[in-house]
């Protein structure tokens, strides 16, 4: 189902959705920089009318995974003094959440996270609780950033279909496309009307433009076994890697975490926090470390995304969002590494 909303009505429509949903989306910070955050949390006055949503693809820095997997999350608290029920698991809030401003690659990243956290014998209850009530609204990228390579790892136009609703900027207004019943319920609003054929043509053109982002040369190599174990490129690229982990902390589909205990205000709290395979501590055991060298950790990162996850879940773990490419402080561009790596014999 498609509807059209004028630029003037957009803010009013979003505000109306906020009554039902806790709304998270890309907003412009006071300094002009975009940020992905809880729209309700913005102090009044900073954002005119409470919402200035940045629906261009500039608001890409913080991955939406923050709202499915908070950087730090309490698993339970343990109170030694409470004899009857010392263990308490925090409950998730009950107002349903709406994520706004997701790009095609963000939608794909959530699909990857779904596999990791929901597949298998044990589903992750904390992730599942957040995911269950979450409404996902995205938008079609107007321009690819220099670092983007979504079309080289899949079909972004198909990924958009994982969203409940998709917003396409057609200049004079936005076409909003509902993919699910929840999405249709969002469109049931007096601020929206039926689009004309011409407006629909503009929408299709925008989707076609997304699909037409040129592919990288490595795109054709992405078979499950294309990464060679002993390739010298691991060493070559790892040499400049600082092991800072930015590439996984800010990757929208990286999902690894650590679990720690801490005493807070007389209680013991067990929490999980983000972790990365790019540090030597990740696999360090008292007896030995299976990945003591940077090149092994670099191989793990790329192999996990381009080889192991395809084997495990039949999905490439990288969405081509370009965050790691753009944010790596030494410009270690995985697209160059992928282009150079030789197939596994």
């Amino acid at each position: 189902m498609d509807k059209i909303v004028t630029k003037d009505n957009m803010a009013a429509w979003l505000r109306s959705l906020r009554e039902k949903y806790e709304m998270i989306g890309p907003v412009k910070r006071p300094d002009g920089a975009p940020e992905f955050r809880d729209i309700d949390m913005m102090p009044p006055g900073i954002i005119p009318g409470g919402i200035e949503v940045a629906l261009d693809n500039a608001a890409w820095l913080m991955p939406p995974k923050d709202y499915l997997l908070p950087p730090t999350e309490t698993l339970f608290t343990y109170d030694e003094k409470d004899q009857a029920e010392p263990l308490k698991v925090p409950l998730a809030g009950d107002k349903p959440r709406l994520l706004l401003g997701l790009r095609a690659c963000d939608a794909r990243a959530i699909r990857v996270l779904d596999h990791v956290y929901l597949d298998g014998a044990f589903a992750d209850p904390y992730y599942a609780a957040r995911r269950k009530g979450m409404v996902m609204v995205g938008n079609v990228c107007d321009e690819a950033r220099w670092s983007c390579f979504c079309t080289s790892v899949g079909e972004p136009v198909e990924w958009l279909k994982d969203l409940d609703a998709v917003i396409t900027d057609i200049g004079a207004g936005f076409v909003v496309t509902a993919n699910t019943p929840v999405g249709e319920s969002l469109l049931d609003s007096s601020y929206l009307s039926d689009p004309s054929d011409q407006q629909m043509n503009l929408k299709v053109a925008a989707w076609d433009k997304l699909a037409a982002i040129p592919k990288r040369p490595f795109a054709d190599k992405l078979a499950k076994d294309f990464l060679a174990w002993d390739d010298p490129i691991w060493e070559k690229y790892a040499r400049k890697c600082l092991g800072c982990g930015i590439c996984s902390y800010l990757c929208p589909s990286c999902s690894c975490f650590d679990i720690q205990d801490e005493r807070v205000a007389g209680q013991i709290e067990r929490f999980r926090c983000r972790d990365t395979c790019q540090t030597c501590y990740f696999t360090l055991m008292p007896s030995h470390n299976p990945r003591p060298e940077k090149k092994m950790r670099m191989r793990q990162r790329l192999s996990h995304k381009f080889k192991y996850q395809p084997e495990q879940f039949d999905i490439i773990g990288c969405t081509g969002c370009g965050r790691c490419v753009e944010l790596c402080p030494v410009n270690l561009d995985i697209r160059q590494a992928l282009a150079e790596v030789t197939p596994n014999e």
Partner: protein
Amino acid sequence: MSSAQPATIEQMKQNPYKPLLATIEEIVEETWDTKTFRAVFQDEEMREKFTYKPGQFQEVSVFGVGEATFCLASTPTRPGSIEFSVRKVGSLTDALHEMSEGAVVGIRGPFGNWFPYQEWKGKDLLFIGGGIGMAPLRSLLNFCLDNRDDYGRVDVIYGARSSDLLCYKTEFDAWRNSKNTNLFLTIDKEEEGWQHNVGFVPAYLNDLAPKPDNTIAITCGPPIMIKFVLQNLATLGFTDEQIYTTLEMKMKCGVGKCGRCNIGHLFVCVDGPVFSYAQIRGLPPEF
């Protein structure tokens, strides 16, 4: 895995991160750095319902310190409590060693796969253990001895650097006295009063020269011991499919989520820790 899921699995499935509370009932000092803990669940129903299979592991919490991974060293054929043996190597294992009887711990599990003992019915079993590596073997061994008629001859080769580093000494007689079961002990160096073999486990294995026919070999111990045991088993004619071991990787969640324990696309916490040597040969060499 079509059979009805036991209650523990149901509970763990709701929230695999939430431990079951248990009380330490008994602590046995095995060696200078290893203790065996017997824990009883606080929930009385859970005491009977907690079931697991030999080879599986659990995450043990000391609240305020953290968690660590230990294999279940007891056998499900003796319900009511669980046992695990702990070698003191770091923060959590230190904290456990500090504990006294009556202390409270958390248990998450059972996790991971198990030895395919159902498929081994009617076969001879050869256990080859070194040091603390005897823990997972002990679970399977006691399980098989409790189901003695299901298996043929059972041989156990167990070694340590010295006699005071052998665990489970109080059980040696019970193992020896089981029907058609032999215990072969060995230590690295000569000791006064030692009446058993002297020499490394792999060498003793060669001396004993067990026949591979209809036999499954299960080995666990220090990596260097396993390496030579595997070589010698091959020389003795054992195929890769006849040899089983357990692998160790750093673990946190135990349920395939935290991303820490992968070897290639397999996660040791879910797809392991039990692997046949044939499977191990197919893995990337990173463990």
